[in-house]
């Protein structure tokens, strides 16, 4: 052991880390695959000296030591190289000789990650598996007199609307005068939420886009994908596939030079424009693409220099209030596409969401509102923002819907809910619960990454290094050596698999409730929860 003086306050042992590497000397072939693949270089080749005591029989020879050397793994314990538990070492080991396991107590690393005074930043999600949505059950099953529908044989129309829907009286009046009716898109209620080109690798983006195109053109499912803030590759902007894409503009305006310049060459209008004012994972904080990921391609698309961090401001700098931002930006964006494209804001769930919503109800161009709850994911954020900031989606969405009901505008401004849908794998159940609480549709990102690309992240702080460009699966990396691990064709295939299975599960939920003709938006009588407080708050049934 080193002298005591070399132990610093931040000197940690493997026991102090969240993840410990178990390594089996007997099985290890010393191939080096694990040390090569480890994204954070948490393990090194270790050269270990071992002493064996030699005690010969008899008294003629004195007992002695036999020193030998063996090679194996050393787990590094400095904060910068602490194991993130991704398990890539296990994946590549030919003999199953290595495995990261989670420590049995709260780690000590968390007290030391702020080396140099820089708080922890990471990608991923809020580190808790709690989910109110998972607790919601669908209790109103059609029984004897009106038997449940057949999810496998009946026809279902599980579509939703994105766009400002005129109330019937106004719509008829406008039609008689041949006036302007706001654009409305008929889309699938599960939208791939905003994950930017930059946050995601080119292969991941391409895979998602191919999957979405296949779902639309071969499977007849009008699935839409939002770009996130980072622009859009010019080839896609000028292609007929743009109609499946929701373009996002956020406070950094990254990529919008390219989009504006492509406008005259667009063959199709985009599905919609999403103006991001907030994000559930880091509410009140702007987007962040750390310098590691800003390579030549990303820099070109975003119109920025290479190798610099790209923090978007928390607010749109040209505006001083959301009212002004909403009014001006929605109008500008609508005008850019000749009022043919729905434009809607996305905000993080917050106790002030109703003020935004009330404002939108008075803006005839506002095409909807997307609300992103605290369980949303992100490519990069401060840990404190992710873990402690934000509002749960269920009650915020419910409040928003009931506010609209009170105003009689529940069909006029579609609400899209995001943040934590499917966080524990229950995508269809969570989506259906939110729809019945009043959402017109839902947005999901993390689930797509996990299901379509094999993202290793979890709610227990596994991996979550999307921010530094070292994604071991190549999903959020801009390093071609990592990116090429992901085959876009396979991602597309998984996107299609995932949507098809989601569709079946959604039917398996709505069919027993006797719903098939329209999406059961606001069908709150179907919901129950084994938590009286939650039931009261959400205005649904308490069941035991």
């Amino acid at each position, binding site marked *: 052991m080193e002298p005591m003086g070399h132990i610093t306050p931040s000197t940690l042992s493997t026991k102090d880390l969240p993840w410990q590497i178990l390594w089996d000397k007997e099985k290890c072939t010393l191939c080096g695959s694990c040390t090569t693949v480890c994204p954070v270089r948490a393990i090194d080749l270790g050269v270990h000296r071992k002493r064996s005591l030699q005690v010969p029989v008899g008294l003629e020879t004195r007992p002695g030591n036999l020193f030998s050397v063996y090679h194996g793994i050393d787990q590094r314990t400095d904060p910068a190289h602490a194991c993130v538990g991704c398990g890539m070492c296990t994946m590549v080991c030919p003999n199953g000789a290595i495995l990261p396991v989670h420590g049995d107590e709260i780690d000590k690393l968390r007290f030391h990650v702020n080396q140099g005074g820089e708080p922890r930043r990471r990608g991923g999600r809020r580190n808790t598996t709690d989910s109110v949505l998972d607790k919601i059950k669908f209790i*109103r099953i059609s029984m004897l*007199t009106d038997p449940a529908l057949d999810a496998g044989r009946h026809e279902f129309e599980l579509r939703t609307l994105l766009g400002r829907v005129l109330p019937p009286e106004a719509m008829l009046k406008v039609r008689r005068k041949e006036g302007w009716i706001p654009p409305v898109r008929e889309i699938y209620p599960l939208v791939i939420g905003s994950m930017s080109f930059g946050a995601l690798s080119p292969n991941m983006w391409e895979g998602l886009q191919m999957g979405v195109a296949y779902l639309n053109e071969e499977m007849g499912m009008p699935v839409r994908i939002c770009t996130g803030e980072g622009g859009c590759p010019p080839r896609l902007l000028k292609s007929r596939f743009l109609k499946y894409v929701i373009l996002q503009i956020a406070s950094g305006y990254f990529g919008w030079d390219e989009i504006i310049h492509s406008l005259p060459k667009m063959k199709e209008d985009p599905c919609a424009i999403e103006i991001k004012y907030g994000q559930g994972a880091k509410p009140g904080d702007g987007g962040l693409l750390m310098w590691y990921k800003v390579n030549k391609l990303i820099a070109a698309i975003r119109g920025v220099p290479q190798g610099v961090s790209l923090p978007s401001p928390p607010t749109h700098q040209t505006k001083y209030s959301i009212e002004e931002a909403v009014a001006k930006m929605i109008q500008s964006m609508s005008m850019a596409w000749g009022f043919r494209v729905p434009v809607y804001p996305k905000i993080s769930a917050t106790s002030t969401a109703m003020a935004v919503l009330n404002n939108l109800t008075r803006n005839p161009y506002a095409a909807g509102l997307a609300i992103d709850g605290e369980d949303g994911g992100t490519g990069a954020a401060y840990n404190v923002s992710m873990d402690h900031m934000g509002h749960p989606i269920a009650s915020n969405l419910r409040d928003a819907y009931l506010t609209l009901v009170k105003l009689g505008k*529940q069909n006029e401004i579609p609400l899209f809910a995001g943040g934590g849908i499917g966080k524990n794998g229950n995508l269809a159940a969570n989506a259906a619960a939110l729809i019945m609480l009043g959402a017109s549709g839902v947005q999901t990102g993390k689930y797509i990454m996990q299901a379509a690309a094999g993202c290793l992240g979890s709610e227990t702080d596994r991996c979550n290094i999307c921010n530094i460009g070292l994604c071991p699966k190549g999903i959020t990396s801009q390093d071609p050596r990592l990116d090429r691990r992901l085959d876009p064709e396979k991602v597309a295939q998984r996107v299609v698999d995932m949507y098809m299975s989601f569709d079946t599960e959604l039917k398996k939920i709505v069919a027993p409730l006797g719903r098939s003709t329209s999406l059961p938006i606001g069908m709150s009588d179907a919901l129950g929860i084994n938590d009286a407080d939650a039931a009261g708050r959400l205005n649904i049934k308490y069941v035991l």
Partner: protein
Amino acid sequence: MCRLFSITSNEALSPIVAINALNVMKEGHDGSGVGLFLTDLGGEFEKFKNEPILSGIFSNEGIKALDRFMIDLDFMVKYKLSFRPNRPTPPGTPKRDNYVIRVYEYPADWEGFSQEDIQFRLMMIQLRLREMGEKDQSMLIFSFWPDVIMIKEVGDPLTVAEYLGLDRKELSARTILSQGRQNTNYAIDIYACHPFFIQGMSTMTNGENTAFVPIREFLMSRDFPGYAGYQSDSEVFAHILHYMHNKLGLSMEMYKHIITPLKDNELTRHPDGGLLRNLKQSCRPLIIDGPNCVIGCLPDKSMFMVQDSKKLRPGIVGGRPGIFAFSSEMCGLDAAIPERDINLDYQPMKYETVLVRSERQEIVKWSQWDTLPPLH
């Protein structure tokens, strides 16, 4: 499942005709309630075509409160028909003091009011009386409208009809809607008995409307006091009809397009796809979703039947010029008009609306695929 029967005839008929048809279909309802809507009245009521008729059930206290209330409003009773059955009540039927049908004379100061104003005021009086009687059940109000009588009670239809003596000669109508009820999904409540009535129109339904809650929320947020009640998920069918007719100014061709619109891909092939798509989007919360056969009557006394979008319930209409009946089961129709040509019976399918106008000459049919009349 509930059983529905309605009949429209040039000759005024006793409501017993409809009750008998319900009785034939008895195996399909559990007798938990019966409701009657009578319009285009005959008998004694023929003389009072334009005066509002109040239909309801009152306790003795309720009657006194009613009198005080109506006198204060300057409504005078012109004619009344009250039943006060002395016989023991049938099983399941509560003991009531008075079943009341009263024709009123309009207050003098209502003269000169627009038709719309009068209709609104009549509805508000009905709602006010219902509210007054809500707490102690002293008043149960079913309608307050010219040329309309409604009778509702909990119990088996035939037994209740005999108990109330509905075969009396004073009571007859040319247009009758009747329903025998099976109450499965909600509590037994007399206000849950079909048919439902609002401002001159009435509907009754069988089956369950699973989209009830969002529809109710939409209607209740239209800022129209008549969209209230909702002890039954089927009440919304009447209110959607009213909303379409009175608020949107649309004709009966559009009812199916609102409650069971064509699918998105079907609309692309429809000659009026643009309008229908806008209508479907704007009226999205009014889309019904259930196995339902809806029979109704419009203010012009035409009678119609529509089905849910999958046609999951039976329903048949048949008759001959002068008399037609709509029935949820064929046996009901057979019992009421046995001498008709059954080859002309018609069972509307998922895209269709069938209607018999007050002239009662033919069954008019149209499909959702037909071109629409122009908007005016």
